[in-house]
């Protein structure tokens, strides 16, 4: 009996030991990719799409701050943490872009790393203009730093952004890598690997950066203008992502489709374009292209601070027939038009005629891009309110036209805060009819992203969204 038992035990043990490893070494997921199977070529298309998501995300609800759209509680300055920007930026864009940069530099594929640096800098510039302090040097370190502290806006603008942008420009001019598979930037939805175009985009980005920094150092205006000249030559070279019928432009999915109308263009915008307030008697031909109205004789937008449905006489909406919210619309990120207005503003004091030319170029290019007919364009341009002559050109003219041209882009909010919502620059600009920030200040910044207080212990203290950011403090 004892013998039998010990024999059985021995057999059992052997059976167990032998089958152990083959049964137990099965913990590698067959349906997902491991890090060594990844390459910069297949990271690139994701990184580009994520950058577009970041740019769209910043404007999705944020465009209520520059009063392009309105109709939700956010337009009353209820707490808003720009999660639609935060999430794609930190969970998707920064990890992909930084990985392309690291791998690219290792493999001496500076073409890839230059493209990635351009996109990374663009996204970070958008983010810091909105949040002020953002995590950067401590970000994307995974589990070795679970509580990344934020870099201040000043550090971002004075140290990190210029370093990144200049490094991008440098990389894009370095010699191509020797490996054949890396020589062309593949899967590039935007420029199809054309590095010259990417270089122009990098300069356009630097122009924007210099314009921002000119708040602190007016001498940078000249640099901004110089960078614009190195940037895009026409709208055809714009940095934008074109969508397809199957994966539609996010504005279509959000507002352009027939059912969802959660936000509507505001009266501030419609008044500027329908010839009733700022440009009395002059109707902007871009008006029916930007939005659709129930009554084409009378475009009536929603008063900023009101909610959708409050006023039944509001009759404008973004639809699938409008340029920005078609399903195949491009999502614009850096444009020739913006560059022209940057130049106009930068040269206004030092070189009026050049500023005037840039200003008119900007208007024309903006109209041409959205398909305004030549006739309508010329009629508009002929009006003296638009073509007042170089000596009479004022900052308010430039900024108002920039406002209209950059419809649905968050760069406008930075413009408005640079001028602190001055009605000298933006006539008839008013606070939303309900302002939920104690003390009733203008909105100056984003709140901390909603998820951050729950997961990060190294956070800046923000009493409310009415506190002016560093860049805009004088």
């Amino acid at each position, binding site marked *: 009996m004892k013998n039998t038992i010990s024999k059985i035990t021995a057999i059992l043990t052997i059976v167990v030991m032998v089958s152990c490893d083959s049964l137990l070494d099965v*913990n*590698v997921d067959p349906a997902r990719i491991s890090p060594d199977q990844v390459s910069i070529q297949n990271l690139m298309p994701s990184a580009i799409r994520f950058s577009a998501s970041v740019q769209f995300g910043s404007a999705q609800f944020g465009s209520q701050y520059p009063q392009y759209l309105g109709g939700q509680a956010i337009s009353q300055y209820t707490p808003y943490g720009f999660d639609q920007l935060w999430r794609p930026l930190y*969970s998707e864009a920064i990890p992909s872009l930084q990985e392309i940069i690291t791998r690219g530099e290792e493999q001496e594929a500076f073409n890839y790393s230059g493209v990635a640096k351009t996109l990374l800098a663009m996204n970070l510039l958008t983010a810091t203009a909105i949040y002020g302090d953002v995590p950067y040097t401590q970000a994307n370190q995974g589990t070795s730093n679970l509580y990344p502290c934020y870099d201040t806006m000043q550090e971002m603008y004075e140290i990190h952004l210029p370093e990144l942008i200049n490094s991008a420009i440098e990389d894009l001019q370095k010699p191509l890598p020797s490996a054949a598979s890396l020589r062309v930037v593949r899967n590039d939805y935007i420029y199809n690997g054309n590095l010259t175009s990417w270089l122009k985009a990098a300069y356009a980005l630097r122009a924007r950066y210099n314009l921002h920094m000119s708040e602190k150092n007016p001498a940078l205006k000249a640099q901004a203008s110089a960078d614009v000249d190195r940037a895009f030559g026409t709208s055809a070279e714009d940095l934008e992502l074109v969508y397809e019928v199957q994966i539609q432009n996010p504005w279509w999915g959000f507002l352009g489709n027939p059912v969802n109308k959660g936000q509507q263009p505001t009266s501030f915008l419609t008044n500027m374009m329908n010839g009733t307030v700022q440009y009395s008697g002059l109707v902007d031909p871009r008006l029916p292209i930007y939005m659709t109205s129930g009554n084409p004789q009378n475009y009536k937008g929603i008063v900023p601070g009101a909610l959708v449905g409050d006023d039944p006489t509001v009759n404008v909406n973004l639809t699938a027939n409008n340029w920005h919210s078609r399903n195949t619309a491009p999502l614009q990120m850096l444009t020739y038009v913006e560059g022209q207005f940057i130049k106009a503003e930068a040269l206004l004091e030092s070189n009026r005629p050049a500023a005037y030319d840039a200003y008119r170029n900007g208007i024309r290019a903006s109209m041409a891009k959205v398909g305004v007919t030549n006739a309508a364009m010329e009629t508009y341009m002929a009006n003296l309110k638009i073509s007042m002559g170089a000596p009479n050109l004022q900052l308010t003219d430039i900024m108002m036209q920039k406002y209209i041209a950059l419809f649905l882009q968050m760069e406008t909010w930075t413009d408005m805060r640079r001028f602190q919502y001055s009605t000298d620059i933006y006539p008839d600009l008013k606070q939303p009819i309900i302002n939920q920030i104690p003390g009733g200040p203008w909105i100056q910044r984003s709140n901390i992203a909603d998820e951050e207080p729950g997961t990060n212990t190294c956070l800046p203290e923000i009493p409310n969204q009415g506190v002016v950011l560093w860049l805009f403090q004088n």
Partner: protein
Amino acid sequence: MKKDLLAILLLWVITALPALAQTAITGKVIDSDTKDALPGVSVVLKGTNTVAITDFDGTFRIAVPSAESVLIFSFIGYSSEEIEVGNKTIIDVSLDQSVSDLNEFVVTAFGIEQERKSLGYAVQVIDKKLITETNQPNALNALRGRIAGVNITSSSGAPGAGTNIVIRGVNSLNPNADNQPLFVVDGIPISNETNISGGRGGSNFTNTNRAADINPDDIESISILKGPAASVLYGLRASNGAVIITTKSGKSGKTTFNYRTSYSFDEVGKRPPMQQRYLRGFNGLYNPSDYRADGPPIPEGTPVYDQWDETFNTGNTFQNNFSFSGGSEKATFYGSIGRLDQTGVLPNSEFDRTNIKISGSLKASDKLTIDGAATYINSNGVNPRMGVGTAGVISYASRYAPDVNISDFMNPDGSQIRYSNLLDNPLYFAENAFQEESLNRFLGNLGATYLITDWLTASYRVGIDQYSDKRFTLTSPTTLIGAGSNGSITEQVIGYQEINSNFLLTGNRKIGDHINATFTVGNQLTTINAQSLSASGTNFVIPDFWSVNNLSQYSARSFPSTRNIIGVFADVKFDYKQTLFLNVTGRNDWSSTLPKENRSFFYPSVSMAYIFTETLNLSSSKILSFGKIRGSFAEVGKDAAPYLIGNYYSTLVPFRGIVGVARNTTIGAENLRPERTRGVEFGVDLGLFSNRLRLDVNYAVQTSIDQIVPIPVSRATGFTNFVINAGEIRNNIWELTADMDIIKKKDFTWNSMLNWSRLRGRVISLPEGLEQIVFQPETPWVKQRVQVGGRPGDWYGWPLSKVEDQSSPFFGDPVLVNGYPDVNNNWRGVPLAEDSFIGNAFPDWEGGWNNAIRYKSLELSFLFTFRKGGYVFDINRRLRYGQAGGEAPTGAETELRNKLVVFDGVVNTGTTESPVWAPNEQAVPIGVSTLYGQSFRYRLASDFNGFQEASWLRLQNVSLNYTVPARLLAKTPFTQITASVTGNNLWVSTPFIGFDPEQSAFGAGSNVFGYVGTNVPATRSIFFGLNFNF
């Protein structure tokens, strides 16, 4: 000489006569209730070793020496009888079923039956009668309120809805964890996955938990093994306890048949009170295209609608079950077929289930017994989308103004009548955003027991659980949530195969005179393969064609997974004079889901029971006849889900012909260790007043360490979740069960059973560098936060501001700003990131009280369940009083409008740094836009936005049965007919305003507790049933 011999012979004969003159006694033993013959009854000649066993027809034959001989008749589940032989030669005996003795044998690990008195840990058993009495299609729901320390929550009242069962508290912080116990059917573990659509935290559809597939009519009994000591033999899958289900098996004897049918009417009882005063519009102005109910007061004569009445209708549940069993001494068989058809209280809400089971056993020889069972289950259901958020049937229905007729929702061309761009009609939505589910499941097992010697047995069982769950989820492009993508459809097939193989060697030896030893060694192999294959897409080509073939943008995903576990274990039990019991076990598991160096782990347990009444010789006492103290210590481990370790990349949906790759946002630690749960428990078990009162008190402390948690991390790290071993939680649990036979006469019995439990969890530590774990971090005004010193389920939110200066005479008074209440100390510029503790999601204590009264042929039973404490968050509440982002002031709390009021409280006449308080005298207007919709005056305050204490007293179940007297059935083929009327959830008393607070917005099997308000509430049902035995 001859005369002396004769005398001696005579004397000898006379004295020997009794010894030789053994009388043969024959007779028959039957069940006093059913009058069935009872085979296997032991007939013992008292004081001797002479035993006879009754045959399959209940007859026995035994030789007794004298008329004073006493025969003892005893059988499991029946009260023993002692009968003096007297001058009878034929003795017929009828034995009474002993309800209390049914608990004497308890099924524990691997189907091993143990005597309850020998167990060192707490176990509770539920008999089949209680399982089918409540007519619940999901057998778990029938256990509600009956088991101390076990919290059972139905996730929704929708047909097929899953049920959550948590034994002795949450011991895992993982929001994706399944804190559910292991389910074992006839010795083989089965899957209780819920496979929630959208993942845990997704919750749009309340999917079924797989243990609900079992036909309640097939269940013989359910044992709940509560702590690690009870479940240690099942290894790491039982670290949350185990639910041991024993199904009915054949009995030898005449073949018997049973047919049971029931039909019910189900309704939604409690609803949130709504205002019926104000028309559509905003700010007092009528506006027919504004869905919000903030218009002028409704004029007389305008039709007013109760939107809940318009949305809910009466549901029905129709159940039928037919079973048969029989057998001989050598072989027994059991078969059943059952069918459930259920329609829900919402449109497009149905569920049906068919169960077929067959089992049998064969005594192949004296030494070898073989048995097997096969079960096939098919279920189909459809349910509309509920949604956590603003897109769901209930959340839409809660926002329509009372003057809107939501039943009129279709235009002649079939499109939806749309009053507003922000709401879909709930009835239209139910038909256009839904999920259909179709399940096919097969459970089979085959086992053999071989008696190697009279003290050594080997047994082996292999079981398979295989199912395929097909889901079709559709969101039509005509709905608000479907419009952005122009419609979406997902077809998913979830496949699952689990094979378990158990081998046991059991031996039983007497050591010395008083000590009995039983040992078991065994080996268990489990292999689980799951697959999820889905085809999903967006962008309908043809508007009304609801097929996956109608999409222009596709993605197909396939996710297989494998998990293998090997275990070896040993269990040794000693009992000394059946008075002192000692049990020691040890188990070692190897799991494939952990890294190689941490993959093997060992855990022991030790438990003791001491029946002190035996030592004190009290077993015949009239007061205390049974008393046992018990204690145990045990440790159980737990492994991880497959593929958690490290970091992966995935491909994205193709865009313009190119597929990109991106890193996943969950990363797992490379050195993941197994989780461990350690439990210490002490208990006292008493039988008082001739066992008329049975008391059981238990205290347990369970500590879980090294839990594998995907902790949410800041997105700035590049990830969203980091899977590591995190933290230590301790749960302290008190359990009390009192079972009383208040009246025990022949024709009139009244049994009352009370159970009560109190659970306190506490977070003892979190891993280094981690200060808190937050669930739902993106909503600052309501979240659950776990931090050291706090408890799992702690809620944090933004309460109304109050004076905090203890020295002030106004301490505790509400702070008002400009005459209005203020939220989260906004008056002094508190950053919005700060929040305050509101309450805990788990109740302070809970329990149930059941009474069963039988008078002749009538039986009445009623069960109350009660719960004190426990904050829940009603997700839907804010939708009913706000005015932005889709909210609509339809709740009754907004009835007070367009009035000037002076709020009670104080205002600050000083500065923010040095406040000076003065009583408020300012009259302010209140209404939707001035008060209810203002975030920092009312809308986001935890006092209003959905937090409420959800204590309740509930009449869970009332049941009235009538059994037709046997004499009336004598001429019919029936042996028993019972008619019954049952009411479930008929009455609830709770301070909670809203629907029934028993709900789980995130579905069964999710680890997110306390969110309610979006699902179909638990229904009030009345069942009519008939049961036939023949």
